[in-house]
């Protein structure tokens, strides 16, 4: 298991987007007090896909739209996403998905 001090920033963000894998995802989820399920992973993959395509952390609105395009409408609802990521699908989900710290807190 990689030393988390080497691959994470002081605030617990993955230093390198490309370092992410299932093991690291589990570790990041644990640090957030979550147990990773396939439902989580599905959303994390959408988040990573978004960042890879658009080079930016999405807002809730953009994420919902992306999920409804890539997965389905039910999974794009705030309710569903906040159930998976209680501290916020953007704040928490992006961290577990290995996205970098965003510039803005809107």
């Amino acid at each position: 298991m990689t030393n988390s001090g080497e691959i994470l920033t002081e605030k617990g963000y993955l230093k390198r987007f490309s370092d992410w894998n299932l093991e690291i995802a589990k570790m990041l989820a644990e640090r957030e007090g979550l147990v990773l399920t396939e439902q989580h992973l599905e959303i994390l993959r959408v988040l990573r896909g978004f960042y890879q395509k658009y080079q930016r952390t999405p807002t809730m609105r953009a994420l919902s739209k992306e999920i409804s395009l890539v997965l389905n409408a039910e999974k794009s609802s705030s309710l569903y996403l906040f159930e998976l990521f209680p501290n916020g699908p953007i704040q928490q989900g992006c961290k577990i998905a290995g996205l970098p710290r965003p510039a803005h807190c809107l």
Partner: protein
Amino acid sequence: MKRILFIFRNPPYGNSTSSEGLDLLLGASVFEFELSLAFIDDGVFQIKYNQQTDPLGLKNFSAILAALPHYGIEHIYVEQESLQKRGLLQTDLIIETKLISAALLSDQIISSDFVFHF
């Protein structure tokens, strides 16, 4: 509903104007505004296909422009003469845009509640 028009006339790199204009636009998108965006002059380069910023060590901030509909931004214009002068076609662009003349852009400005220039 408030109508807000953003006019982007600067090229994507060289300074932070375009990138910070985009941040303001996306910041506006969380509200219920009717948002429009117009690319004129060198601004058209922001949506030009095949930008490669890695060799410069710069983040490709304009990639997100391809996802503007995700943010509810659907009125995206490109000024016709600006494209022509730069030898570009709408097919060279990363998003679907509506072609607009300078005169029609003036109308847009007049009918907007707020206009931001970047």
